[in-house]
């Protein structure tokens, strides 16, 4: 009975959100698009990082690739196919990153993702200068802002639904076991690398799609715009503040922080990133449990995975 009520309420909220563009001015809709984008980004980020403890600093690498794929293919392919191409590009990058780092301790993954956006930005820049000969691209598409909004809303709803399903599935249990103790997880028959890789790929594809769907908003795009590191940073802050291991956590973090960031960037454009940084440090200090409760356990197990089990036994050197 209770769950039926929750479902009805969710459908009503979704319907109300879907109807929002009919009652809004351009500015309000623009705000809503940005908000929905970050809700999806933070939720998708948390789907992997919040559940495995591998902190990804590369959100914008995937986001930017999605945007760039749209810029590159919007005039040669029909729109749905453009999205497919973007998703595949994000998937390919996720597999490269995941296969090379997810078998190792979390810190290698953090380091790898830390420079990844910069690497992709340089590669795209290099390609554009040396192969296509121009740096910027224009995106002329007849998609109105309300269509972009609806796509993002659908993507956000899908992300939350997928997360909800995963949390209740065997995969969800596997993730919780891995977060608690990787050694036990492996001894129960869980394939650690494949589980993490699958989740990372899923999360990355969603993030790529957010970038792809939002791309037409820019009309002009160049690497410095598409690969703006602030996107990675904001996503991380929102998800962590809200609680990255819970279904609704990232949403709860994204809504107030997005509005705050909008206000900050409108009123303090020059000091924006200083304020962001200070705010983030404050969050790390003020809500440590909200931030690390889950992530922490992961790194502990990770360290254990580094040292073989034998070390705790029999007084080995």
């Amino acid at each position, binding site marked *: 009975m209770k769950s039926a009520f929750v479902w009805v309420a969710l459908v009503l909220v979704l319907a109300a959100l879907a109807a929002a563009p009919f009652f809004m001015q351009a500015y309000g809709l623009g705000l809503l698009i940005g908000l929905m984008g970050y809700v999806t980004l933070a939720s998708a980020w948390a789907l992997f990082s919040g559940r495995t403890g591998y902190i990804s600093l590369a959100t914008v690498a995937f986001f930017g690739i999605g945007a760039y794929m749209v810029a590159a293919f919007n005039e040669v392919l029909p729109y749905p196919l453009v999205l497919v191409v973007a998703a595949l590009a994000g998937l390919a990058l996720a597999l490269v990153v995941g296969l090379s780092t997810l078998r190792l301790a979390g810190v290698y993954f953090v380091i790898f993702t830390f420079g990844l956006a910069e690497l992709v930005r340089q590669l795209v820049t290099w390609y554009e200068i040396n192969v296509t000969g121009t740096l910027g691209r224009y995106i002329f598409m007849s998609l109105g802002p309300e269509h972009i909004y609806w796509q993002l809303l659908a993507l956000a709803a899908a992300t939350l639904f997928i997360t909800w399903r995963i949390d209740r599935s065997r995969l969800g249990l*596997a993730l*919780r*076991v891995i977060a608690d103790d990787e*050694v036990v997880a492996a*001894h129960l*028959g869980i394939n650690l690398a494949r589980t993490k890789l699958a989740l990372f790929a899923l999360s990355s594809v969603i993030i790529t799609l957010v970038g792809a769907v939002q791309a037409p908003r820019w009309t002009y795009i160049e690497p410095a715009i598409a690969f703006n590191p602030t996107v990675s940073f904001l996503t991380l802050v929102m998800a962590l503040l809200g609680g990255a291991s819970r279904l609704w956590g990232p949403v709860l973090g994204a809504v107030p922080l997005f509005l705050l960031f909008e206000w900050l960037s409108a009123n303090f454009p020059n000091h924006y990133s200083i304020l962001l940084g200070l705010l983030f440090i404050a969050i790390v200090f003020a809500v440590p449990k909200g931030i690390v409760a889950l992530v922490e356990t992961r790194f502990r197990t990770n360290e254990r995975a580094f040292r073989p089990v034998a070390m705790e036994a029999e007084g080995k050197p």
Partner: protein
Amino acid sequence: MSATLLTLSSLSKRFGGLVAVNEVSFQVAAGEIVGLLGPNGSGKTTVLNMISGSLRPTAGSIDLAGARLSGLAAHRIAALGVARTFQLVRILPSLTVGENVLAALAFRSKPLWGREARDRADALLEEVGLAGRGEERAADLTYIDQKRMELARALGAEPRLLLLDEWLAGLNPAELRLGINLIAALREKGMTILLVEHVMEAVRALCGRAVVMNAGVRIAEGATADVLADAEVVRAYLGGADD
């Protein structure tokens, strides 16, 4: 004697310059309980870790009923039917007691999930003496109950070979009695068990055969009573690790 289940051939493990296990060979037949004995630091747990896949052997091989285990990752070995408990009990602290067992059911080679899995988990908890406690947080259990839960988790995998690493250590006499009975009951069901144990009372009561290691080398193997009377074994234990 019944068919050989586990075969270790010239198994060795080196940590840098230290040879923890040196050319150890022995076999375990299906349905028997074998004790792996030896003083601290003799390499017993390292052998167990190599069987379960926590460690990769430096040399030698491990086979389980014709399948080569050595070199496989731990999750592959688990899928082939090896389950274990850990010397320092390893619970999944953020999960409930029931979920700890459920985790074993959900990821074994013939997985169980949903209603069926919950029933099976409840039955396993009952079997180890934790009936009706599935909803409690694993971290809140007492040490002995955590050990029980760990055993239920290992049994949940329906292993062909169960590895117990000092599962009876740290129990008081009454608990020890219960523990021995629990393992004896598993033997009645035909479970094959390799156990590392210092509690000689348990070894005498449970193990038909024993393998003794010292300084990484196998120094004796045979019927438990004979092995424990062996002069070299007594010398290895000099100072009375026989607690």
